[in-house]
């Protein structure tokens, strides 16, 4: 499916924002891109164990949504969590340590790529059972409502996940109880190798949410400002007790589904058209067009990010693995019932 939004970020849209904010968006997205490219390389050279699901091309969804969140809000993710985690404030180092299977990783090397998270930063380990995180996110939102806390939950999942019963059950319950959760559906047009047109008769996945009586919007998921604006509006609604909201973020995966996927099921023209819709390129062009930012400034941002990631890689490569003493720890929390 070819891109359906105009390539240019509208001038009046970008004109609304401070230079520093726009540069931050660029930096955040670039950090994800650079991180993923570096990890891909490490993985292909055999330095990293396991499998990986990466998000090159989808940086704007993670960054746009997370910029609309407060630091103490929550986020749940999927088998493809690296970008969400970085956007939520996990450091490249704590994620890299986990990917290398170190005891110093964000999950002590017990989780791995598909379970990146850090509860202290509002992100429980990602859930790799497709759709599995959606009821969990709704449950977190239920707790927030019962505790009368002001936070909200951003729940990320893909187009493929909207066919799971878990999606339908959870969205409905979030709807009937007005829960503070923003359902962020990253519609990258494919669930693994299956095109979205093969899994629904609806012209838009948004309708799967409107069927439950909630507000649902389709957004250009490769325009970080459009994502940010919709997410901010959704967050305001959720905080006002008028949630949930469903955002269908149209995007495209510029990389394989997992590890060495050659993507032969994606038409070449489609891939090329979406490569031109790269969210980083689009923001970069809009920034330069606006005039307040120079190429050398952007390059300085990029260089700083690259250096920081390279440093983190060097530390993570040498970090210690768990020991056999760690094998059977962390299965249960300490019982609250005294013996």
């Amino acid at each position, binding site marked *: 499916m070819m891109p359906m939004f105009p390539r240019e970020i509208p001038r009046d849209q970008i004109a609304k924002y401070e230079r520093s904010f726009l540069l931050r968006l660029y930096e955040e997205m670039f950090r994800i891109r650079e991180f993923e490219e570096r990890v891909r390389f490490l993985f292909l050279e055999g330095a990293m*164990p*396991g*499998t990986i699901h990466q998000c090159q091309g989808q940086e704007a969804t993670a960054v746009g949504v997370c910029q609309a969140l407060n630091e103490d809000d929550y986020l749940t993710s999927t088998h493809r969590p690296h970008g969400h985690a970085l956007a939520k404030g996990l450091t490249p180092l704590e994620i890299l340590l*986990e990917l290398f*299977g*170190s*005891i110093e990783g964000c*999950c002590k*090397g*017990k*989780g*791995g*790529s*598909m*379970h990146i998270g850090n509860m202290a930063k509002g992100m429980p380990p990602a*859930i*790799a*059972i*497709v*759709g599995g995180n959606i009821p969990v996110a709704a449950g977190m939102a239920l707790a927030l409502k019962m505790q009368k806390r002001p936070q909200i939950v951003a729940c990320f999942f893909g187009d*493929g*996940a909207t*066919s*799971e*019963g*878990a999606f339908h059950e959870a969205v409905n319950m979030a709807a009937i109880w007005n829960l503070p959760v923003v359902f962020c559906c990253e519609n990258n047009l494919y*669930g*693994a*190798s*299956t095109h979205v047109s*093969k*899994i*629904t008769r609806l012209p838009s996945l948004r309708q799967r949410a409107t069927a439950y009586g909630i507000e649902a919007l389709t957004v250009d998921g490769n325009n970080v400002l459009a994502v940010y604006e919709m997410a901010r509006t959704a967050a305001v609604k959720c905080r006002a007790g008028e949630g949930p909201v469903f955002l269908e973020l149209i995007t495209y995966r510029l990389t394989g589904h997992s*590890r*060495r*996927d*050659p993507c*032969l*099921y*994606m038409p070449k023209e489609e891939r090329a058209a979406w490569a031109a819709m790269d969210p980083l390129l689009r923001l970069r062009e809009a920034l330069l067009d606006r005039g307040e930012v120079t190429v050398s400034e952007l390059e300085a941002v990029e260089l700083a990010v690259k250096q920081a990631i390279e440093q983190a890689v060097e530390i993570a490569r040498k970090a210690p*693995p*768990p*020991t*056999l003493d*760690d*094998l*059977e720890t962390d*299965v249960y929390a300490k019982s609250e019932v005294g013996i």
Partner: protein
Amino acid sequence: MKRMGIAEALREAIAEEMRRDHRVFCMGEDIGIPGGWGGAFTVTLGLEKEFPDRMINTPIAENGFFGMGMGAAMLGMRPIVDVQYGDFLLCAMDQICSNASMMRYMSGGTVSVPLVMRAPVGATGRGAQHARNLERMFLGVPGIKIVAPSTAYDAKGLLKAAVRDGNPVMIFEHKLLYGSKGPRTESGAVDATSDIPDDDYVVPIGRAAVRREGADVTIIAWLLMAHAAQAAANVLSAEGIEAEVVDARSLNPLDYETIGASVKKTGRALIVEEGPITGGVGAEIAAGIQERFGDCLRTSVRRVASPDIPVPFAPVLENAYRPDAARVAAAVRAMCGR
């Protein structure tokens, strides 16, 4: 005769069964897609060319399409449904365990559910949710037959037997044994290739295979652990301990005839299982041996299995989780007083 790995042998079995019987069809995620992978591990790669109408690619909706497989089976079709990783069987648990397994009984023997279910299992560096050995979860569910091949020959023959069986049959396949090629190659893979005869054959469900004869101890295993058991037996042989390796192959029903004959001969039984030791298939086999052949035992039945933890990600921990030949050999030595 052709040399084949498990993925290839399963593919050939499916193709032959579809050619033989027009009621047979496949249903699962990412199958039958031109340019796709043929399921998660290439088993159905390219089958859409010959059977464009019988490779049904589903949305990600396991409970739904397992239930649909059952419904289609009730009306005379012979579906082969699969999950990409065994762990996702849990999403379909309701249809499998509350419907497919019990329909025959609840209908007083009037309805049959000739449904084949395929599920890749095993810890392979992917973390806790793509790693479990689910055999244990279905063993206590009457009405489902369970097979777990360790060689390409058995994989082909058991899948054919499953398609023709007329009951719900679950076939567990090990990711490290597939021999998947190209981009889907698994690191740490173990050779499970066999010479596959040109002629049609089935491996009957309910029969174990003696892989190696020996008089001192019986090692019972399946899937990847059958390979670990044979490797251990080779090491032990050099030390003067002769182990008999029984590849269970079929977990429900279990072949107590073959197991019993071996245990009566050796007087010692060790069960090797990938998966937590508590509540595993090994527990059932141990009890079964004790009840049937307890008088013949020279020492108590032992198990080598995983610790009672989720599957860890870090390679050092995962390797400690998954039993290997060294642990099997150590257990045998202890049983033999060495």
